[in-house]
């Protein structure tokens, strides 16, 4: 059998390097890279989901798993082990979709396009790596590898305080990564796993005493919580989003936040079950605080991007909640929600980017009634906002519905908090739409153009994905539930 994952990795790597070196052809190279990537991932996804009847194949363990020796140490073996399961496959699909959408959206990027497209590809490469890595070191390597291109993406291109934001992002998330690494290594060594392979660690670590697991889980949780981000470790996020170029924001919200969720599912919950159970009160508290905080603070934001950033905190809080439920339905909901949020927040950030360069500002009160002048843009904003607030027939709905159902099932009436917050979430989006899209035109310069075609195609792709999986969430669900994770048939 062909080592599919390494091949994808190699193609992505070759494409990334070529993009960096391609000069003014960079965007074409990036487009080709992302198209190939999407085709490869799409093929994997379809074969896995059993389209068109979509009867999920239940593959025990990880599919496409390959392992090569990498670093041999007397006390442990580090392998280059990669593989996918349903959960990672869905997130890989998200990566591929976002990459091509970002590349197309940024088609006319003029400031150092080679570096820009190269960094975009590199970020996606790193995310892909995180999702396929089945080895502690490999996982951490890709995890950190995402950081560097994102640091440059934030720092070089747009906002006035971008340097500060990039620095904050880098330092903050790196500190968290290091704590996470300590936790992972301690897990490996205390459990006596002889290899850093996921299978070895996941087999050995549950044998640790619950007390040890509790502390280890906390370390891992902190590492992932910053990426999530969970209140109060979130303050890097709004700054990073506000200052990043659109492509950076898209990847930041669409991919980077998902790394935290994926990491938590794969490397913490599965590996340290007893610690997880002990620390669940903390997880829930963090989730509830994030859900409420993200939504309420969004309401007070004037900057469109900042608002969407805080809404991300709210959504990722729900993801954390769903993960914390420790049920198969919760897990399903968490992954669905991550996919949904990845697509929808990307769409919203793209809209915000277009608003910014069309009107020269993202200040919500400063512009109003833009719909007659830019109907397509207004439509995109509306689609994003409605999907984000969980409207049926769009991807957000099945995700949030399952998440809330799982919450009810796991926590009973505590579901009232996320449910009640849904109203606040609706409120800030609807209010934003009232102020920006409707009413008499305000701050709309004459002679502006509607969404240019490349941005339209980028956003349109995401809208299409939103609708497709909103109507047929089963496509994703069948893939997710075939994973070898607790309660799913793949176990």
């Amino acid at each position, binding site marked *: 059998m062909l080592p599919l994952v390494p091949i994808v990795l190699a193609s992505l790597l070759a494409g990334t390097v070529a993009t960096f070196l391609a000069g003014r052809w960079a965007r074409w190279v990036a487009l080709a890279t992302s198209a190939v990537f999407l085709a490869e991932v799409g093929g994997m996804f379809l074969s896995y989901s059993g389209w068109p009847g979509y009867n999920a194949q239940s593959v025990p363990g990880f599919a496409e798993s390959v392992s090569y020796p990498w670093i041999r140490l007397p006390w442990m073996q580090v392998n280059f082990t990669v593989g996918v399961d349903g959960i990672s496959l869905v997130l890989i699909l998200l990566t591929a979709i976002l990459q091509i959408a970002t590349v197309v959206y940024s088609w006319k990027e003029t400031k150092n396009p080679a570096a820009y497209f190269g960094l975009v590809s590199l970020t996606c490469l790193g995310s892909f790596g995180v999702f396929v890595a089945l080895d502690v070191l490999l996982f951490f390597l890709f995890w950190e590898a995402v950081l560097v291109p994102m640091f440059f993406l934030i720092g070089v291109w747009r906002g006035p305080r971008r340097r500060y934001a990039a620095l904050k992002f880098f330092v903050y998330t*790196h500190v968290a990564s290091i*704590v996470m690494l300590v936790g992972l290594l301690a897990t490996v*060594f205390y459990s006596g796993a002889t290899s850093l392979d996921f299978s070895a660690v996941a087999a050995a670590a549950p044998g640790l005493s619950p007390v040890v697991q509790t502390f280890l889980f906390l370390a891992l949780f902190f590492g992932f919580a910053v990426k999530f981000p969970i209140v109060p470790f979130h303050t890097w996020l709004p700054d990073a989003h506000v200052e990043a170029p659109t492509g950076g924001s898209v990847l930041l919200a669409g991919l980077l936040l998902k790394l935290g969720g994926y990491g938590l599912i794969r490397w913490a919950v599965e590996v340290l079950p007893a610690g997880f159970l002990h620390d669940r009160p903390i997880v829930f508290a963090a989730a509830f605080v994030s859900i409420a905080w993200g939504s309420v603070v969004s309401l007070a934001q004037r900057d469109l991007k900042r608002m969407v950033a805080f809404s991300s905190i709210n959504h990722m809080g729900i993801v954390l909640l769903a993960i914390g439920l420790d049920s198969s339905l919760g897990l399903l909901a968490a992954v669905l929600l991550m996919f949904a949020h990845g697509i929808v927040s990307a769409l919203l950030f793209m809209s915000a980017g277009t608003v910014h360069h069309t009107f020269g500002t993202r200040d919500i009160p400063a512009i109003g009634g833009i719909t007659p002048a830019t109907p397509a843009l207004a439509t995109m904003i509306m689609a994003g906002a409605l999907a984000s607030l969980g409207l049926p027939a769009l991807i957000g709905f099945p995700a949030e519905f399952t998440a809330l159902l799982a919450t009810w099932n796991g926590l009973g009436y505590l579901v009232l908090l996320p449910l009640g917050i849904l109203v606040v979430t609706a409120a800030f989006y609807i209010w934003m739409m009232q102020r920006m899209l409707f009413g008499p035109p305000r701050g709309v310069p004459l002679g502006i153009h509607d969404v240019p075609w490349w941005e339209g195609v980028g956003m349109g792709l995401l809208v299409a994905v939103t609708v497709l999986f909103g109507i047929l969430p089963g496509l994703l669900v069948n893939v997710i539930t075939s994973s070898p994770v607790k309660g799913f048939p793949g176990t």
Partner: protein
Amino acid sequence: MSFAGTVGPLVPEVIVLAAALLVFLLDVAGARRRELVGAISIAALAGALLVVLADLGFLPLAALRGLPPSVLNAVPAAGSAPLYTFGSLGLVFQGLFLLAALLVATASLSRASDERGAPIYYGLLLLATLGMLLVALASDLIFLLLAIEVTSLATYVLVGYTRRDARALEAAMKFYIVGALSSTLSFFGASLLFGAYGTTNLYALRAVAGSVGYPVLALLGYGILLAGLAFKTTLVPFHAWAVDVYDGAPHEVSAFLAGGTKKIGVFALFLVFLGPVLYVKAGGGSPFSGAPFDLGPTVQLTLAVLAVVTMTVGNVLALLQAEMKRMLAYSSISQAGYMLIGIAIGTSPALAGATLQVAAHVLMKSGAFLVVAAAAAIGVGPKIVDWQGLGTRRPWLAVAFALMLLSLAGVPLTVGFVSKFVLFSAAVQARGFFVWLAVAGLLNSALSVFYYARVLKVIFFEPAPGPLPARAGDVVGAAGPTPLGAGGIGYGRAVAIGVAAVLIVAIGLYPQPILGPIQSAAAHFVAGGA
């Protein structure tokens, strides 16, 4: 033992010594062109490096092998007390020293070719390297300290060799005074050990470390010796000289000091302290009771405290540094703390990790200082803010520097990450309070990210304030605007920086080829002679 038998194993040392003498002779003879003496030095260092690699057993180089395999890692017979032996860990360090010297020598080719004192410079560089090579072979405490002094004396002069630069001379003065004080302390400590054990042979010391006859005397000796060696290794609080010296010295010399000579202190600590560290005699007790007591843990704890203090102080001091070289100097100090962790733990994985950290540091820190030299050559000032816009003006140089900084910060895909990973995983694997050592180290590396990222921010995100001057040199005696090759930084520097950057990434991606030999060397080192 025949003459050939004596010299055969010492081929690298002989090559370096001969080259040094040749360079001095050429100086006397009036042939002072930098290109000439530089080429000789580089050839000698490269040759020595090849021989060392061959001795280490890299197969394609077997023909160059000067060291009989029987000698390698041979433990001296009981009752014999050789001054030097050939351990593979020593050879690894020799390789690293030669690599550092080679990088510096290559980069130094880009200094003004008619600069006064080029032969002196290269001659001293070779002499210092010779001392370093001898350190790596030492099996006797006095031999070790004298070898260190060979390097020290050469570098004191090297720092101030231009004799025209007040800052460099001030640096040399400080270097000398603190260095002489430290060497005095080292010898005094050695004398106490000699008094306690009746020998200065390191193998013998390791063997008798267990039967501490006079624990107070021995511990005092080890303590004073530690203070003396800590000077070279730049452990806090023995570090203060290093910042000023790295700052004031010519950039290439800074690269050599930080990337090269500092590591002899590390290896000396390995040699001296492995014995006490490995001595485990449970039962507690006090050093004043006269009875055997927990020497091992005591020494380990002391070293660990020093390591943590060194890492932390170095990082905290680097945080707000406004000058690039001083920032690098403080970061170099904090890195020394990581290396100390290896000997504090004393297991072969930990020593391997520390050795890898040394290797990484050779590449990162020499490389970083050479980038400073290159930047100075194109008119970039000494302050960090002067580096604004380098990312757009000299993207390749900036990317190389970014790689080095990221490696120093321990970001994956670089050698700096691999070394920290191996080191800290060894610490965690050793359990006990070493886990906290690893935690402290990792937290420190998190702290360090702040100032590395700040530099990256300045280089890549902030626009250049204005056009660079056509050629402004840090180079004393630079005459006329003859632009250097490779975009103004000089081919020598370009090659050295390029090699360092490529190695940083290559080892970061696939460390096995270098990690394997280091591991087996460390295992031999721990197992040998005890």
